[in-house]
């Protein structure tokens, strides 16, 4: 187990180095640099050169990358080229909001999605099943930005129940979380339904029924455990995606998440902030992947022996 974890850790570090290098080189390839983005269009050639020097952009590329990595090793992600503030502070400020939104979306997806999936599975082939699965299909198909605008128009403008945009209270969390959760709820519902139907006819389920266990007990204890497997995998990976920031929803709802910071740092060609944020996202992905594998091992002991 420890050996396995160490292997994963070593692999993870390699991935992070690769990601930081690729991000750095990609931004370097984009036309214009941070100095140009900063001084604007009316600055003279001398001013531009001076700004480049001030920001250390006149140092050779590899040297800059090496300095940057050296800083990271010492726990210093550097400072923003635009505001001069520490990258750690900038990223930390945003990560809280991103985490809050991601977790709310996850809980909503898991609870609502599973409930719908179970209900549909229980009524397999019936009208309720058809209705729920049709709604789920619609939920996947609707573009998030459109749903978001529609939710704002209905719940904020027409009904006046919820604030239009911003953050800071639970009320502000509702609309962005629902917009993000809608497609995930639908996917979870479908996976859950399929998972339950898969095991419905399995021998161990039949055995459980014949032992005289109540149908409720069989569903909750014997079937649900297996039905949840694909859902966990899917949600785990999706959480990684959500933690990377959700630029469109953040923009529409004025949510202070990582996505907006990342996009702004690309426009500003602010590479320390961009790399800092991207590295954090990559670390999150790695942790989540590991967590998903471990949860699987707990849910399904057979899988555990092979994986670990």
């Amino acid at each position: 187990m420890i050996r396995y974890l160490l292997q994963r850790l070593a692999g993870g570090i390699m991935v992070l180095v690769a990601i930081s290098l690729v991000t750095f080189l990609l931004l370097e390839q984009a036309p214009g640099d941070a100095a140009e983005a900063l001084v604007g269009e009316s600055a003279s050639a001398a001013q531009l050169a001076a700004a480049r020097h001030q920001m250390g952009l006149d140092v050779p590329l590899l040297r800059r990358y090496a300095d940057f990595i050296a800083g990271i090793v010492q726990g210093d992600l550097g400072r923003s080229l635009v505001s001069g503030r520490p990258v750690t502070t900038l990223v930390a400020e945003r990560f809280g909001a991103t985490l809050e939104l991601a977790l709310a979306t996850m809980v909503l997806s898991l609870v609502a999605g599973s409930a719908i999936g179970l209900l549909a599975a229980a009524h397999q082939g019936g009208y309720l099943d058809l209705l729920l699965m049709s709604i789920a299909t619609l939920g996947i198909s609707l573009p998030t930005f459109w749903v978001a605008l529609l939710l704002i128009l209905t719940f904020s403008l027409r009904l006046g129940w919820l604030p239009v945009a911003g953050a800071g209270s639970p009320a502000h969390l509702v609309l962005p979380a629902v917009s993000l959760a809608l497609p995930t709820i639908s996917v979870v519902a479908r996976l859950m339904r399929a998972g339950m139907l898969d095991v419905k006819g399995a021998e161990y389920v039949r055995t459980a029924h014949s032992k005289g266990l109540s149908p409720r007990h069989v569903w909750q204890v014997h079937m649900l455990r297996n039905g949840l497997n694909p859902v966990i995998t899917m949600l785990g990976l999706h959480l990684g995606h959500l933690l990377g920031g959700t630029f469109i929803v953040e923009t529409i709802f004025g949510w202070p998440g990582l996505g907006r910071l990342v996009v702004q740092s690309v426009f500003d060609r602010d590479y320390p902030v961009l790399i800092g944020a991207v590295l954090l996202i990559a670390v999150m992905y790695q942790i989540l992947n590991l967590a998903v594998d471990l949860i699987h091992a707990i849910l399904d002991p057979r899988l555990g022996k092979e994986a670990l």
Partner: protein
Amino acid sequence: MRVLRNLVLLVLILSVAGCGAVSSSGGTGNGGVVTRALTSEPATLDPHGAAGSGQNVILPYIFDTLVYRDTDNTYKPFLAESWTVSEDGKTVTFKLRGGVTFHDGTALDAEAVAFSLQRLKDAGAKSPLASGMAIIAGIEAVDRQTLRLTLTSPSATLFSTLSMPYAGIVSPTAVKQEGDSFGQKPVGSGPFKLHEWKPGVSITLVRNADYKWGPPSVKNQAAPHIAQAVFKVIPDATTQLTALQAGDVDIAFVNQPEQVQTLKQDKNIQVIESPLNSLIYLGFNCQKPPFDDVRVRQALSHAVNKAELVQTALGGVGKEAFAPLSPTLPGFDPSLKSFELSYDPARAKSLLAEAGFTQAADGTWTRGKDRLSGLLLTSSRAPNDAIATILQSQFKAIGVPLEIRLLDSTAAMNAMSKGQYDLMVWRYDWNDADVLNIYLGSANIGRTNRVFYSNKAVDDLLNTAGRTMDDKARQQMYVDAQKQIMADAPWQPLYVPIDYTAVRTRIQHAVMGPMGRVLLNDVTVTGK
């Protein structure tokens, strides 16, 4: 965490329910909160640091400047009561207003102003005022109320520089105390002081109860009536509009034509035209054949139908332009209209023929082996994409095919400076006629002069105008320069944008300041 969140909720409810429940310590302010939507959050509120969108919206509330620029582009006393300019124009002496203090209690005297201006000068290239500050050779506090600036040469742009939000006067005490974090904890002498900054969400200012030195264009020179001004970060234009209609924000800047129509129908919202010193133009790459030929530039200028452009791309929200200077800038003259290369496809074709092009059966033009076509470069920001498309169809009508390339602004500027384009659509926002020198002076070729235009006579006129302190003489030089520029056609001025500020009617006595600024000094609010 939960306690904190509930507290925030409580504060929110209180501030909505009982306007003024939040402290409005001292003075006779009758309270109220005004909320303004902000498209992008500033990275810093240090006026002498890096500029960024969003920053100049907030700075003027926190910081005062030495002189005040009025909407008619004249300069009025602000922190400086009066000033004198020496015979040779190289020494300017300011007499400061007495009894002014910063938010932290530090006295605002000549020492403090000198400290501020020196700090701005030292910020160098990071400040958008770098070129304006470069002409100041000496900054000297003569006595408590007297400040003397020594210039390297007479400058007509000094007052423009000193009136900009980026030239705000900062508290020396706070700068020394906060160091690098001054941008997060700014201290000035303005009508409002920073109360709270929630990153990515909002910036809240509270009234400065000690304020009594407001600019001359507002009625209430004392502390503002309202208790708080909140700037709420909402990046999306549609959400901003909805927040405005729902009453979540009171003030928003509007620059999309279809939004203006929607807002005008809402009886709770007043839509005010914001005067901006801006112009959108079509620029030609004057060093790249065949656009180095003045006849080709003139011909293509005649192909542009500005009336159609403004109607179709902007829904009529814009004024057709004819001169390189925006009508609000000194040096603009209505008589320049007669020099315009106006819409005339027949003239366009005859000019192309004069330039040695022949029209083929398919309508395109060739000279020797070269077919006349062009790459039109602009930024991907609306409405540039629409403008580019209309121009493409108008040029096609005379037989000149255009390829459109849309890039983000930094990438577009970079490509333009390197001359990697044939035609460009671009916008300037500048508050002085000196803009012509920046974008068309040959000393700036390859950097800010991205059309590679060079004319000795124009250079001489623009350089002399920049050093002329006599307003009348200076304006005449700009008129003369514009006549030559219009004949040389490095630019075809397209239109003057009309931007709007939408204000909920519960906000009363909002005064429009220069550059789309809403002055809150006189504002009072009624219930929701």
